[in-house]
């Protein structure tokens, strides 16, 4: 009885909504996605190069920052850490925000090429000064989409357009794409657990 009781309480309290969403740690460098991705309109893939060819989207090397910041704001104290890293070769210890357990194998390549936009999982990063987790990233949440992908599928070339507003029902577009490109999100255990 007691077991059942605490279990039920647990299953209510420990809902991902309470435990994961909203996580927004302080990063070593005060990098603003809002500024870069939003106001400046940089494409996600400029920094997250792996996203189309690898499981991991990848965090950019300091080098990538320096591509611009060697000229732009070259002396800004906010960028000290970046310059230091670039010179010393010591990596910047970014704090992971969107974390899945070790037994979950998520693959960016598969999703992005299928036309699932960054926004579906990461939210409007282009409006976040400090990035925050907005979705529970729980298995049940993943399955919602894998069972009914239509509303979340868009033309692959638009995946990084976080602000994309289709002129008609996105689910309709999704259904057409799914039919056309033979998209069938797996629901097997082994799709994610190996």
């Amino acid at each position, binding site marked *: 009885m007691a077991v059942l009781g605490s279990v039920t309480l*647990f299953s209510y309290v*420990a809902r991902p909504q309470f435990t994961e969403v*909203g*996580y927004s740690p302080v990063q070593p460098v005060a990098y603003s996605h809002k500024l870069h991705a939003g106001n400046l309109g940089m494409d996600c893939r400029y920094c997250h190069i792996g996203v189309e060819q690898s499981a991991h989207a*990848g965090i950019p090397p300091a080098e990538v920052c320096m591509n611009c910041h060697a000229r732009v704001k070259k002396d800004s104290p906010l960028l000290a850490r970046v310059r230091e890293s*670039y010179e010393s070769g010591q990596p*910047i210890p970014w704090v992971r925000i969107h*974390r899945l357990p070790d037994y979950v194998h998520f693959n960016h390549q598969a999703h992005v090429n299928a036309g699932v936009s960054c926004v579906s999982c990461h939210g409007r990063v282009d409006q976040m000064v400090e990035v925050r987790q907005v979705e529970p990233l729980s298995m049940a949440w993943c399955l919602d989409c894998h069972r009914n992908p239509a509303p979340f599928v868009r033309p692959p070339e638009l995946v990084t357009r976080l602000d994309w507003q289709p002129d008609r029902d996105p689910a309709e577009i999704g259904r057409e794409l799914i039919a056309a490109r033979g998209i069938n999100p797996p629901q097997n255990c082994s799709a994610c657990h190996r």
Partner: protein
Amino acid sequence: MSEKAKRYWRSLGEVADTPEFRQWLEREFPEGASEWVGSRRALLKLMAASFSLAGLTACRRPEEKILPFSKGVEGYVPGQPVYYASIMTLGGLATGVLVESHEGRPTKIEGNPEHPASRGAASAFAQASILSLYDPDRSRTVLREGRRASWEEFEAFVQQHMQRAGKGEGLRFLSGAISSPSLLALRAYLLDRYPRAGWVQYEPLGRESELAGIELLFGRPLQPVYRFEQADVIVALDADFLGLDNLAPVWIRDYAARRRLGTPQDSMNRLYVVEPGFSLTGANADHRWRARPSEIGQIARELARELGVNGLKVLGSGSSHPWLAAIARDLQRHRGRSLVLAGPRQPAAVHALAHWMNHALGNAGRTVSYTQPVVRTDMAGLTALAEEARAGQVDTLVILGANPVYNAPADADFAAAMKRVPVTIHLGQEVDETAALAVWHLPEAHYLEAWGDGRAFDGTASIQQPTVAPLFGGRTASEIVALLAGYEHRRAYDIVRNYWLTQWKGPEGERTWERAVHDGVISGTDFTPVAVTPDLRRVQGLLNEPALPVADPEVVFVPSSATYDGRFANNGWLQEAPDPITKLTWDNAALLSPATARRMGVENGDVVEIESQGRRVQMPVWILPGHADGAVSLALGYGRKRCGRVGRNVGHDPYPLRTSAYPGFVRGAVVRRTGRRYRLVTTQEHHSMEGRPIVREATLEEFRAQPDLIRKQSAKTELFSLFKEHDYSQGYQWGMAIDLNACIGCNACLLACQAENNIPIVGKDQVRRGREMHWIRLDRYFEGDPEDPRIAWQPVACQHCEMAPCETVCPVAATNHSSEGLNDMAYNRCIGTRYCANNCPYKVRRFNFLDYHKGLQEVQKMVFNPDVTVRMRGVMEKCTYCVQRIEEKKIKAKAEGRRLQDGEILTACQQTCPAQAIVFGDINDPDSRVSRLRRDPRNYSLLEELNTRPRTTYLARLRNPNPELASQEGS
């Protein structure tokens, strides 16, 4: 889910860099709580959560860092494995490998498809070598008389020491077999600089007698290069060419190519084996006879007489063995398409006879050709060196990657010899028996850490390229030699590159070098066969030697399937891999035939003392049906006194019995009972099929006569299922077919699986309790006469049943059927009731009874495959058909918007299988190789009467007995 919840988390973020416990406190009480005063309900939730979740990470999430490069690396994408071509050398001979590397750490070895020795296959030793790279017990520092020292100190020492070297009078080198062109060049350079210096190459399992025999016959030492795919009839005289005397996986491939039948009408080779022990080759023979090792010579002579070839007057004829005549006739029928081999344990005379027979049968140039030797080892040279040392004529002894104190012949008494040498320098990967006696010990780099080169059995040269910087600051033999010789280049990379660029003059050089490094093969470097003419007089003499009188028991020294000659003793994967024949793990034993054991009055586990030439060792007995009577087989490479924690004092050391006079076998030993017992551990306790149609067999004739007799072997019953069948109308449907006729029973698949799937080592005690974790079992059954049985193999992994008994009984749905027919296992859902394992008729599920990954050091974790979850204690696991490989390839194909092609996905076991016995693919596609095999009349599924409908099916084993002998053998 309220605003407050979010704020709560942000407040956590703010204490980012404070230590764990502070975070905990702050979360638990004041600051966190203060925010909650607003809503009592929320506060209660928080408290309830913190209590009911105590211990679970779900609530308090540990902060995780992501460390990107500070500068990007050209063409490198995080999360994408990179493959490098290299070579692994064993006994001096190179086999090509592909090294899979994740984020800069090598995790898996595959065979290099371009390389003539591997052709894509990798041996069990190659598969396991990756574990040795991350062995925490490897030598980490330079030692001077056992005390920590530095490379600088050593270099300084060499500087001043070599000044007194003069012409190298007292300078001696001892190394393993060397095929490396660059190192041999360095050696020449050194000997040129110190003309009076000496350099001995020693391998405990060298092949001196083979070269000597050929020299006897053809007048010069040559190395035979066999073409097994050309041979219709093979006669192996104590030659385990499929097993431990194998020089290249491609031998197995070529042999198996002639066992894999497309249609019943295809031809198949025939293998005759005469041997003392029970070898892999013997287990695969169509006809096998047991003989004492000393009898083999007589048998070779009699076979030669039976062949009675022209140009040779045969004194005396007729033979003690009626079957020899039949073999001789069979050989005669296949002139130019037959092959006679003698094993390295046999003396030169037997090799001479064997190759004379090949020549007489017109096989030379067809099934066997002769080239200059790739390696020249010299056991006599080693004993001579020990002589010199004892005589005090050696003042500097440099031992490069050899361990003579442990594995030199007993009569050399190397330990004593070494003590007489003032300066001994030992380069080795571990602080071993030799290092302990050396003045200087230098850590040696693993082959995956070092630049180098080497030649394959046929002479083909390859570049050995490192895939990771030396983990423990090791250096290569070439670097040490360069240092001692005062060579211009000091780094292995420069030494190797410089050597080859001098070979390839001109502008092309650079590009050739790059191609060589990239391909892992330097084309056109294989040795060209030389024409040979036998010296008949010599053979004449050999033919008429009298048979040796019986002197029982004879002791045979064989390599170990786990440690080879002892060098892999500290490799847990190999130690735990059951011996293919005995199924013993973590031990060697004195192998006896049942009859001999009865005569000696000993049983399994009795410790006996074996005495020979005044030397004694103690060994536990293991009774092996099919072993020759009056002989005892001892596997070398155990009982290491000084090595890592894994291999120390595992098994018993037979080297003390082995002398340079009789390195292969010795007659007239004495075996006494000691009355002591010793626990030997095996992974298979029962050896009979109990008359069940598990491994299905037929002879080639029977099969040709009625191809459906394989199918007929299982009971005909009307099978139906209560459960709804799955629908595979679109998409893929995976299946696997294993050809038992090709499978030779080597452990390559087992180790490949272990490396690919992060399978733990459990240790001797856990194996004794029946808890080994290997996902593939190589079931070995004896059949027929208990004294002289035949062996049948069957690799059994998860069969991925269509009607899987495990799926229905799991209470938490942790094992499910995938839409592609896989039997998925979700470790993170498993709670470990073990019900699935109980209900699995194949017993292929493995349970983590304890935390088998406990206490791993960081360096040991580096070997893990990041694509496969490391299973925790208390969950079930099993073969997944390498689902991580399936998913990887599927995602790739999807991204490219195409369907997978047949053969694109290779499971780990399939990829490495030297015999290519395993085929995996899509059975929805009627033209896929696996579909075609499933239509083969030899195809059957294991325990099909249970209607589990396995996706793994087997192709029955065929034997190809000689009709003349079939009758008298009754096989």
